[in-house]
């Protein structure tokens, strides 16, 4: 049941780019700030030498391109997997689409509500119970309080925590907290869900459960962006893959062909 507006891509990214200051030059103390202002006042600019435009060197001295010129689309119901070695820019891409940081250039347009899970259990309070934490977590994911309350039964069933709902979460095992956080995320009423390396620690049984839930959501038009180092999982969950290298898109396409090139 696609409405006309959902015929548009869920996500359209055009030349999405981001550079970061490398640690040393970002002014974090008053002293450094005064020094810089003084040098500027004396007419000595901090950026004198011409900068290389090749590689990951950013537009100013001591800057680095984390991701550069990312252009891609994600269709409704699609699950896009992002693979690449450490430092390839996968997490920066997720942080940009999750609106945690702003791009330096380019733009992305997202149709519908965005929800993201970059870390399992962010914002959990150890003294609150599972339902209380689920409520807070659901609101963090962009739901109204009543929406989470409506789904509470389903969330507790999914995470198998029905019998533990009066315990503070600090008394629950790591695995239980993990299942709770993921259950809330997979029951969010978002149209675009970003999952950054959060499914890797799931056991086989819970992974199957998540897979079913994600399929169900995808049939309803929800899109996923899935970052993982587990290639079997990527193959199982994703309908298309994006291979990132040195901050740029190296290859994108069918999972089969991208994985073949990647593992070569």
């Amino acid at each position: 049941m696609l409405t006309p507006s959902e015929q548009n891509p869920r996500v359209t990214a055009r030349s999405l780019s981001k550079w970061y200051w490398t640690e040393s030059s970002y002014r974090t103390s008053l002293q450094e700030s005064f020094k810089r202002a003084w040098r500027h006042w004396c007419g000595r600019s901090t950026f004198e030498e011409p900068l290389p435009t090749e590689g990951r060197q950013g537009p100013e001295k001591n800057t680095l391109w984390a991701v550069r010129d990312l252009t891609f689309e994600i269709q409704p119901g699609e699950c896009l997997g992002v693979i690449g070695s450490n430092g390839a820019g996968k997490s920066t891409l997720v942080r940009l689409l999750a609106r945690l940081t702003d791009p330096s250039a380019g733009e992305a347009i997202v149709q519908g509500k965005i929800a993201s899970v970059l870390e399992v259990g962010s914002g959990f309070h150890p003294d609150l119970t599972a339902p209380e934490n689920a409520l807070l977590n659901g609101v963090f994911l962009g739901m109204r309080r009543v929406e989470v309350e409506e789904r509470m039964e389903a969330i507790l069933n999914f995470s198998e925590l029905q019998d533990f709902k009066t315990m503070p979460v600090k008394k629950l095992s790591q695995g239980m907290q993990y299942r709770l956080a993921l259950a809330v995320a997979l029951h969010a009423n978002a149209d675009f869900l970003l999952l950054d390396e959060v499914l890797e620690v799931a056991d086989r049984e819970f992974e199957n459960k998540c897979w079913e839930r994600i399929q169900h959501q995808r049939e309803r038009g929800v899109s996923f962006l899935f970052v993982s180092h587990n290639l079997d999982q990527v193959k199982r969950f994703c309908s298309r893959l994006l291979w990132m290298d040195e901050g740029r898109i190296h290859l994108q396409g069918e999972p089969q062909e991208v994985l073949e090139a990647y593992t070569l």
Partner: protein
Amino acid sequence: MQTRIKPQSSLPWVDWKLVYQYRDLLGLWVKRDIASKYRQTFLGPLWFVFHPLVTATVFVLIFARGLQIETEGVPPVLFYLTGLLIWNYVSQALNSTSMTLVSHSGLFKKVFFPRVILPFSYCVSSLVSLGIQLGVLSCFYLVFVGWGSPVRPTEWVLLFPFLIAQTLLLSFGLGLWIAALTVRFRDFHHVWALISPLWLYATPISYPLSALPESWHWALELNPLTSVVEGLRLGVLGTGTFHFGAWAGSVCITLGIALTGLLIFQKVERSCVDSL
């Protein structure tokens, strides 16, 4: 609903539509803050009874007995408790708001939500201890009135909710400023540790404004808390140097601090995630 993810504008303003969407977070965070403050503490909210009592006792000993500062004919304990009501709220609210960006950096790196909701909810949850202190003040008030003290509230007491709202807004705005400056310059909390006690003594809490020469009043009235404290005492205790001109000025300064605070917080909150 469509979201455009684009480079930061040079003067980012609060996305009120988004804040409205996330409005449930306010109540939940207030609840979380209160729960985390009182669960597992031995005396719980009782701390907020002891704290003003101890400070008021010290003030009575030093300022009223020792230095013989006249409290406009009001029993010194009531005089100090009324002023401390405001000061304790401000310092408590500032304590938590000003650390928002630093102490929640982990959360800010991982979870998206309109950041301003957090400092605002701290200002709201600090109202709980204000309520407790108001209870303490009321008890003392009744005891003193029963004992034959001539203190009586005046019609100015109707200003009470407005003065509290103004104090909340002022703490919010100032908290945003300090939060932004602390995350930008890590040494700023030393600066604030210096300014904060000076501010206490520049506010007529341990003395009445009328104890100072009239030619000094304008300087003290630049401090937006002056009119709040004097107005509150005029309402509750019936004595105080309060006029609408000075109050209007203090409201303008409060609004100015809140607006600029929002601006600088918004600016820093977007860029700080990259450097935290």
